[in-house]
């Protein structure tokens, strides 16, 4: 292995990352414009979290595809794929209803990303995974049950 080449690469990587960090710091108020919604993240039920996010009254939709295992062997890492076929989708939110704090996150796809996201979540016990899609200012929802044999929370 050519050592000098490695050092050059490493150096380039570090300066690149620094420049990007500066740019990100300056440009940040774009995506995820709303501040991290503490009230929603602290909510202990999906209903309360949805209320805090303004998602109350979301309409059931068949145009949201949730791909997750029927039975998760390891609740600490449950892969979830979500695709929205609703035109004008701007964000995708995930709630794991039986977790101590159900609201797991919101993914903003309004600025040039396709209405798709893959994530891996901890699921403490068998629970519906509820998804809320925002499209054109309206909210749509769907859910999929995931059975967990070994919990993801606690030690």
């Amino acid at each position, binding site marked *: 292995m050519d050592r000098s080449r490695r050092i050059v690469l490493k150096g380039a990587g570090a300066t690149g990352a620094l420049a990007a960090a500066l740019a990100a710091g300056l440009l940040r108020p774009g995506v995820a414009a709303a501040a*991290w919604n503490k009230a929603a993240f602290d909510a202990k039920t999906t209903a309360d979290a949805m209320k805090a996010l303004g998602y109350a009254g979301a309409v059931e939709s068949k145009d949201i595809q949730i791909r997750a295992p029927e039975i998760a062997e390891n609740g600490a890492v449950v892969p979830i794929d979500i695709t929205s076929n609703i035109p004008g989708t701007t964000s995708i939110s995930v709630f*794991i209803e039986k977790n101590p704090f159900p609201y797991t*996150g919101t993914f903003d796809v309004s600025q040039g990303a396709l209405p798709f996201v893959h994530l891996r979540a901890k699921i403490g016990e068998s629970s519906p995974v509820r998804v809320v899609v925002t499209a054109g200012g309206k909210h749509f929802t769907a859910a999929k049950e995931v059975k967990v044999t070994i919990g993801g929370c606690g030690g």
Partner: protein
Amino acid sequence: MADPMKIRASLQGDVADVRVLMAHPMETGQRKDASGNVVPQHFIQTITAQLNGKPVFGADISQAISRNPVFAFKVKGAKAGDKLSITWIDNKGDKRTDEVVVGGG
């Protein structure tokens, strides 16, 4: 600073298929260590992604995301050679940014 992210951005037509692995403990604040003390919360809260400096994807997440988080998303209108950068910020204010070239090896 935390370990670098592993980012892959492969091009399919004009869509960049992005996968990212972040090195982070994602402590929930519910777990106890060997001596019975609660391990304090430590988790990534916000993620932003930019294509050539323009925001394209963002996320607000909770501690329920798995340790060493993996995400995938798809960015429209990308071409080979574009620069994709991802930044995360955690609840202690730590942050990290990494960048890759779209379609690069």
